């Protein structure tokens, strides 16, 4: 941080134990590592010149990052040597400077604020606990406590969040951009909840979830293209086709375990994509399918100004001024409803024999079998149901975009959805929401950082996995309590 060393020494003259040469050497070493890393990564930039690709040096950025690393490391070193208070003040000051004063680039501002904040946090922890660092176990316990509290607060947070999401389009801030981001977030939340059934509940690592998303999207696009079926007819059909593909995939691979299973699902995701690319006559190949019909208002009314024959116009039906936003708002509610259906299903199924059998399978497959759980059927059910929800989301995606191509269904999509589930804490419903906000929302919010947002994204992932290896909200509440409100049901239906 921007903390010159002489101010720090002046601020704490009483402490003689500060090992200045050692601390400075340590900080210098960190700066040297930063130099090695930033020189190629930040210092050089390829630019498009008329004569071809050129390279531009960016010494300012390199120097800035090295200085920041040096000061940050120095701050950490001083915290460890009883200088927490001055470091806290300076770090806060520097975060404040980053926040208030104009900065040459957004990145510098972000680094100042985040870096200053983190150092200040460390200093504050040191001041309250007397140690600069919590042990892994202590940190786990603290975070677990937070997770438990969040999980318990979900009872109150969830209705508020749902109501908030429901009235968002009616508020004045709801412009086209906000709604689009909302739809994007809800799509990923729905996919995350869907994949959570397979990964979080049944404990099967599925690296090819996007395949079912693709099956759903193409089912709708092709059915509409070849047979002229409407969205409302195609939605259940797409779900069924995706579930069918889930069963087809499930049969051969369910005897595999762990890593092998993951690899095969990865392969399946790619197979679907490659079929879509190469079956030119049927799927349009890499060109994709365009002109996918938009959904009508439950088959009653259209969202266009001049509806086709036999259809009412939405704005006339409700006596509203025509606005192109109506369709977006409708889409928003549609995906909100779909996502909530997935969530309700999961919450409900956890208390039913089916969901309990899934959780038992996740915990211990051999023990589950020895308790009479039919492993194959249970896994197939998990696969088919998650695939069905993926198919619903896919149809929605197709109708929202109006255009789909195999490029939308690459492995990175599977990886992002899986990252959402794992970061959120496997099996945690609220965790999926939080992780989606982080994984999808943050990069959207920091769009102005341009190239750096993916860097920040990657760093965020690394930090979460270091601090919370089991996910942000990986706390599991029992589904039954003795003499609680609910009587446990006997589990006959899990056969």
């Amino acid at each position, binding site marked *: 941080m921007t903390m010159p060393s002489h101010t720090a020494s002046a601020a704490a003259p009483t402490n003689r134990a500060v090992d200045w040469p050692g601390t400075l050497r340590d900080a210098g070493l960190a700066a040297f590592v930063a130099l090695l890393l930033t020189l190629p990564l930040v210092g050089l930039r390829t630019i498009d010149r008329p004569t071809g690709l050129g390279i531009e040096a960016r010494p300012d950025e390199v120097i800035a990052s090295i200085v920041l690393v040096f000061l940050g490391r120095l701050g950490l070193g001083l915290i460890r040597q009883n200088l927490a208070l001055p470091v806290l003040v300076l770090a806060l000051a520097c975060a404040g400077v980053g926040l208030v004063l104009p900065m040459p680039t957004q990145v510098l501002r972000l680094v100042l604020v985040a870096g200053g904040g983190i150092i200040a946090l460390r200093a504050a922890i040191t001041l309250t606990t007397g140690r600069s660092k919590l042990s892994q176990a202590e940190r786990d316990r603290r975070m677990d406590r937070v997770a438990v509290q969040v999980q318990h607060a979900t009872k109150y947070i969830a209705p508020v969040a749902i109501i908030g999401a429901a009235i968002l389009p009616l508020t004045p801030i709801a412009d086209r951009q906000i709604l689009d981001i909302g739809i994007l977030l809800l799509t990923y939340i729905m996919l995350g909840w869907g994949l959570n059934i397979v990964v979080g509940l049944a404990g099967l690592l599925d690296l090819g979830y996007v395949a079912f998303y693709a099956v759903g999207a193409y089912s709708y696009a092709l059915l509409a293209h070849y047979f002229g079926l409407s969205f409302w007819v195609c939605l259940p059909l797409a779900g069924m086709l995706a579930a069918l593909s889930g069963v087809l995939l499930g049969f051969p691979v369910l005897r595999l375990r762990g890593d092998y299973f993951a690899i095969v699902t990865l392969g399946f995701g790619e197979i679907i994509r490659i079929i879509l690319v190469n079956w030119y006559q049927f799927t349009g190949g890499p060109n994709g399918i365009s002109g996918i019909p938009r959904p009508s208002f439950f088959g009653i009314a259209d969202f266009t100004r001049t509806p086709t024959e036999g259809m009412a116009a939405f704005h006339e039906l409700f006596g509203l001024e025509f606005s192109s936003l109506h369709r977006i708002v409708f889409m928003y509610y549609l995906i909100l409803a779909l996502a909530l259906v997935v969530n309700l299903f999961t919450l409900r199924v956890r208390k039913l*024999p089916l969901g*309990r*059998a899934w*959780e*038992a399978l996740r*915990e*211990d497959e*051999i*023990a*589950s*079998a*020895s*308790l*009479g*759980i*039919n*492993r194959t059927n249970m896994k197939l059910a998990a696969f088919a149901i998650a695939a069905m929800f993926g198919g619903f989301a896919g149809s929605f995606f197709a109708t929202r975009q109006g255009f789909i191509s195999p490029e939308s269904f690459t492995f990175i999509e599977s990886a992002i959805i899986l990252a959402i589930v794992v970061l959120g804490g496997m099996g945690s419903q609220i965790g999926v929401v939080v992780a989606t906000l982080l994984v999808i929302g943050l990069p959207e919010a920091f769009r102005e950082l341009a190239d750096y947002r993916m860097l920040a994204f990657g760093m965020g992932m690394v930090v979460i996995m270091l601090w919370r290896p089991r996910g942000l909200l990986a706390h*599991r509440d*029992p*589904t*039954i*309590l*003795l003499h609680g409100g609910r009587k*446990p*049901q*006997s*589990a*006959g239906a*899990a*056969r």
Partner: protein
Amino acid sequence: MLKVSGVHTFYGAIEALKGIDLEIGSGEIVSLIGANGAGKSTLLMTLCGSPRARQGRVIFEGEDITDLPTHEIVRRGIAQSPEGRRIFPRMSVLENLQMGSIVAKPGSFETELERVLTLFPRLKERIHQRAGTMSGGEQQMLAIGRALMSQPRLLLLDEPSLGLAPLIVKQIFQVIKAINEEQKMTVFMVEQNAFHALKLAHRGYVMVNGRITMTGSGAQLLADPEVRAAYLEGGH
């Protein structure tokens, strides 16, 4: 009740069971003792269909169950407390017990739960605790309790005393005895703790290298000089 005849089981090319013949009568406690790697656990797992016997038959109450899948065998009334206990560590004790009742008759959960909690009062104290945080002895009680929840007619126990303190071992064996006497439960137990296992058992088998080498009543085996030399003396 259970009749095993000429069972051979293989792990790949390795023959783990080399022709096992064994019989368990209704209401009996039968113990199978033997050294590490003799194939005791393999036999127990073969009874449950995983791994499957390559030759020979397993007949349970007149029905050939050799080729049935594991979950079907369990539904016939055989419950297993597997090797290493294999409880569900992230689930609560109550949830673990609930998982045990999957194949039980619908509506029997409450009464079975009551019965298991009376047998193991410790589990009642820990009913909402995460199972993985309990001590080894409590986990073993849970494993047995979970197996009992399915209302089996034959209870298979794989090394119930493994890694437990002598006092806890004693408790566990008392409970096994109680289940057998009060509920007329048939118990087939695999043990390294030959003394306790044979003392409790009506009959016993000794297994060496995948073969049954000796059989007799529990008391007979306990008194047998060979058994004493191989499994008892120096052990206690």
